[in-house]
Each structure stands twice: as C-alpha cells, then as structure tokens.
C-alpha cells in the first residue's frame, strides 16, 4: 500500500466516504422520482399540498446534491492514495464509463438547477414543460446509477475471461441487473422515508396548526411510498442473491453460513424493525381518523403476529460465529445449536414464509387503515406525536440497513478486489468482525444524520430564526 491513512486506516476512510456518498446519492436519485410524481398529482388532482410537498423536498434535494458531490470527492481522494493501482486498473478498464459518468453528472447538475430555479417562472404557464424537465432529471440520474452499478457489480461478479471481455461484458456482468433492480427500488424506499424524516422534523419544530396538518400529511405520504416499495425489496433482494449464488455457490456459503451469516441475522432484525415501525405508524394514523379506534384492536393482533413472524425470520440454526470456529471449551455442541424439534424454524423455507407473512400482514393493516378511512375523515395534524419519532426512526433504520447490506456486498469479495481475479493483499484484506462493522455503521449513520440536520437547519430553521 503506497500510503496509509493513520490513525483511522485507509479501508475505514474509504468505507465511510463510499457509504456517505451512496446514501446522499440514493436520496438525490430516489426523492426526485416521486417529487415529479407529486408535482404531476398536484396539477392532476388540483391539490396544492402535493405541489408544496414536491417543492419543499426539492429544496432539501438541492442542498443534498452538494453533499453528494463533496462525499464523492472525499471517497475518490481516499481511494486514489492507498489504492492507486487498483483505482488505476478500474479507470483503464472502464474509461468510457467514467468519461460518460462525468459528462452525465455535469448535465444532470445543470438540469437539476434548471428544474429548481424554473419552478416559480413556469408555475402558471409551462407546468407540463417543468414536469418534463423533472422527468429528464430522473432519466439522467437513473443512467448515472446504472453506470456505477456496472463498476461495483463487476468487482463481485466479473465475467469469465476478464482480460478479453468487452466493455459491455464487464458492465453487463452476472449481477448487474439484480443490483440495478434492487437499488432502483431501494432508492425510492429511502427517498420516501427521507421525506417522512423532513416532514417529521418540521412537524415537531413548527407551532402553527396548518403547518402541523400539512407536515402530518407529508409524513404520511413519505411513509406510504417508503413502505409500499419496501414490500417489493425482499423480492428484489432474493433475485439479486439468486444471481450471486448462481454465479458461484461458494459465495452463498460465505454469505449465509460462514463469516457473514450473523450479518444476515442483524439484517433480519433491522428489516423486521422497519416493517414493525411502519405498521406502528399506520396504527397511530388510524387513531386520528374519526371512528378509526375500533380498528386498532385488529391491527394490534396483526402486529403481534408480525413480531412472531420476525422471530422466526431471525431464528438461527446455530450460535457459532462461522463455519470453522470450534465451540467454546467445555460447551457441548448441542447447547449452541437449535433443538431438533425446532430445527425447521432455522430452514430457509420457514424464513421465506415468515417474510411473506410480515409482508401480507402489512398489507392487511393497510386494508384496516383503508376500511377506517371509508367510515370517517382524517383529522390531519391531530396525530400522536410519537408517530413523528417513528418517522425519524424509519430513515435511521434504513440508513443502517443500507450500510450493513453494502458492507455485506463488499465483504462477499473476501480478500479480492475483483473476485477471484485481483487479490487484495493490502493490510486491510480481511473481513472485519460484526462488532467493528456495527461501529462503522453507527458512525456513518450519525454523520449522515448530522449532515441532514445541517441541511434542514440551513433550509428551514435558519430562515425562520432570522425572520421577525
């Protein structure tokens, strides 16, 4: 390694930079998708709330754009020093991709500013044109994502005969489409939860009744989009994992049965918490519908069933750290494996059913919510304040989960920069422990929320504080 970055260590800094960049990128790619949809709905339904939602979210996106660029630069600089040889290799092999990426980022930035600054001038005449600019912004963002997914997925699943492979073969490697699908849906989920975060923060910091009503509605829409797309994510994740397993069965052993198996336990806990939190919010939402309280008992039962399904999901077959570590001295193996009569709970079949149950029960709770809505009207702004803390917890869980699964995807390469092709013999070649990974994810989540807090303060708090 030509240069290391003491005292943090080169890999950890690259990790923080890459993950923060990805989080902001996911937000600025995911949020505009439904900003445009909301703008369109505002025109179509003649409901000014959609217009305000789109505009206030776009204000946050514009500021988050700068942080996406800054964290991207931080990531690049930390990569170019310690990993210059490998970065050089990627740049040579993917030169047209990086060149196009740079060009498209430039165009996307211009389009993003045009979209933001023409909002007012095109508000009366030319709304359709303004929405078209938003669609163009999303198209550019999606292509940018697809390009970088090509580089990222190549490192884990390079095509056979890498040296002779064409650029298209490098990009269209065995896990590219799976990663594209998963990231596209996950970005919308994340965008939805981030809108809910913005809404909850503004709800809790505003004192006007009409603001409470609006931000309550905005938080509901954000959570709705986030949860609706979250339901699709296990399917997309399954497709992606299947592509990896078909590529190399040894990957599935490393991921699900060996060093990273406990990472998936934590994933089960986090995704279960995401679903439980979204359902708890739905339950609190039902309470603010006139006559909605009578549906609460049914939703509570569904919630309890979800807790049971989540417990099945995270039931491991054994409590050993990996495939080769011996049982602790003096502890018989039978004490740290699941009892025979409950062994079926540890199988994938049971876990698949448990995840399906969690999804089905979420849909059932939404049906209860719709049923309540059919019998009474919503008192926007009258929601229990606990709901707003749930809306802050949801993106926190999403950020941590994204970080965890990003780490799993990278660590799946083991001690390879490009799996089974270019070996990583730097001092950071090993898979870190789950404890260390959790610490890193905690830091990343805290820094991301601190930066988002800064954006919200600059965008909404500072102006309010300065006004008489």
């Amino acid at each position, binding site marked *: 390694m030509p240069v290391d970055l003491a005292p943090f260590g080169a*890999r950890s800094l690259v990790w923080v930079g890459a993950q923060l960049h990805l989080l902001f990128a996911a937000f600025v790619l995911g949020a505009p998708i439904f900003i445009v949809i909301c703008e369109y709905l505002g025109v179509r339904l003649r409901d000014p709330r959609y217009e305000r939602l789109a505009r206030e979210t776009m204000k946050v996106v514009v500021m988050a754009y700068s942080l996406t660029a800054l964290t991207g630069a931080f990531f690049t600089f930390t990569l170019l020093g310690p990993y210059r040889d490998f970065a050089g290799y990627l740049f040579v092999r993917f030169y047209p991709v990086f060149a196009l990426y740079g060009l498209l980022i430039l165009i996307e930035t211009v389009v993003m500013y045009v979209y933001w600054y023409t909002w007012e001038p095109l508000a009366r005449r030319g709304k359709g044109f303004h929405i078209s600019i938003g669609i163009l912004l999303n198209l550019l963002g999606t292509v940018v994502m697809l390009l970088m997914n090509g580089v990222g997925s190549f490192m884990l699943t390079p095509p056979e*005969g890498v040296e002779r492979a064409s650029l298209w073969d490098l990009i269209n490697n065995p896990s590219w489409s799976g990663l594209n699908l998963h990231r596209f849906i996950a970005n919308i989920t994340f965008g939805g939860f981030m809108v809910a975060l913005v809404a909850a923060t503004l709800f809790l910091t505003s004192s006007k009744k009409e603001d409470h009503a609006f931000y309550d509605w905005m938080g509901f829409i954000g959570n709705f989009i986030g949860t609706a797309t979250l339901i699709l994510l296990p399917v997309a994740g399954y497709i992606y994992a299947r592509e990896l397993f078909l590529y190399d069965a040894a990957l599935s052993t490393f991921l699900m049965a060996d060093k990273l198996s406990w990472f998936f336990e934590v994933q089960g806990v986090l995704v279960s918490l995401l679903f439980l939190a979204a359902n708890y919010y739905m339950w609190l939402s039902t309470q603010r519908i006139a006559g909605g309280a009578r549906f609460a008992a049914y939703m509570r039962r569904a919630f309890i069933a979800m807790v049971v399904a989540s417990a099945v999901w995270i039931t491991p*077959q054994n409590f050993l750290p990996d495939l080769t570590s011996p049982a602790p001295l003096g502890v018989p193996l039978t004490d740290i494996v699941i009892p025979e009569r409950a062994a079926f709970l540890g199988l994938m079949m049971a876990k698949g059913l448990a995840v399906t149950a969690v999804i089905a029960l979420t849909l059932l709770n939404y049906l209860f919510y719709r049923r309540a809505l059919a019998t009474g009207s919503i008192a926007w702004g009258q929601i229990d304040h606990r709901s707003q803390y749930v809306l802050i917890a949801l993106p926190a869980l999403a950020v941590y989960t994204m970080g965890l699964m990003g780490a799993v995807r990278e660590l799946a390469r083991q001690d390879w920069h490009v799996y089974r092709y270019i070996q*990583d013999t730097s001092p950071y070649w090993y898979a870190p422990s789950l404890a260390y990974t959790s*610490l890193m994810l905690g*830091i990343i989540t*805290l820094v991301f929320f601190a930066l988002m807090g800064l954006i919200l303060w600059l965008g909404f708090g500072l102006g309010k504080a300065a006004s008489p």
Partner: protein
Amino acid sequence: MPHLHWLPAAALVLLGSTLAACEYPGVPHPLAGQGGADGAWAAAPAPGLVRAAGSPRGAPSQVAAAQAQAGEVTVGLKDFFLDPDRIAAKAGGVVFNLVNEGRYTHDFRVEGNGVDEKAPKVGIGHSLRWEITLAAGTYQISCPISNHADRGMNGTLVVG
C-alpha cells in the same frame, strides 16, 4: 442556541466511536509484497468459478469413494459436502447411515432411473438409518435443502 444542550454529548459519542473504529495499521496479508504497490496484483489472474472447498456440481470430487458393506454405508453430511461422495452398492436394499457432522440441518436425496427419494431431515449432531431399494444403474446423491447441493453436497451412487 436553544434545544442544543445534547450536542456536546452527541459529539463525544461520535468522537469516542471514531477512536474505537481506528484499525490502522491492519494485518499483513500472507501474500503481501508479491504484487503491485498496493498489493493488487499478488495472484495470477484466475477467473473461473472453481471453489476452494467442497465440490460444486460438475467439479472434480475431493472426497474418497466407498463401497457399501453388506448393503450398508455410512454417509457423513458435512458443511457442505458428502463424505463419501462416490458410493458403490449392490442392487436391492441399500441402507444409508446418515450422520450430520455439520452445523446446519441436512438431508439426503437419491435421484435417477425413475427414482427420486428423500430421507427425513437429519438435525445437527444427529444420525438416521434410511433404507431404499434400488435397481442397477447410476444415481445422483445430494442434500436437497436450500442450495446445499450447489454448494458441494452432491455425488454419485453406482448400483451394480
């Protein structure tokens, strides 16, 4: 600044976590120093999907063959290979002593020549005696749970 009295505590937590996350200088790799400046080129390019342990479908076997004695053979169900993975037996009743020596629940399947039979699942640390009647021919043996067969839990059974 009102409502920000928690800020020093949060900063302290972040600082403490950051210090705890310092992993410099790392651990030298066994192959370090053989490659480029950042150690990127230590191994010769080795694309292809040959796994390090076990034997995925189609890959050469790493486990010895076994001949059933008196129509009975013991098969170790390990993570993730069968031991032995090449078995020879005489036509008629074949008894398998299935011993789960792994850390995950396993199973045993015999396929081919119109036969597709599965034994009951074998729990971790447990054994099972399973009998099946087979005509002469070559059969595939595997663990049918999840993708264990693709990970290497597969082999052949020749009945003569």
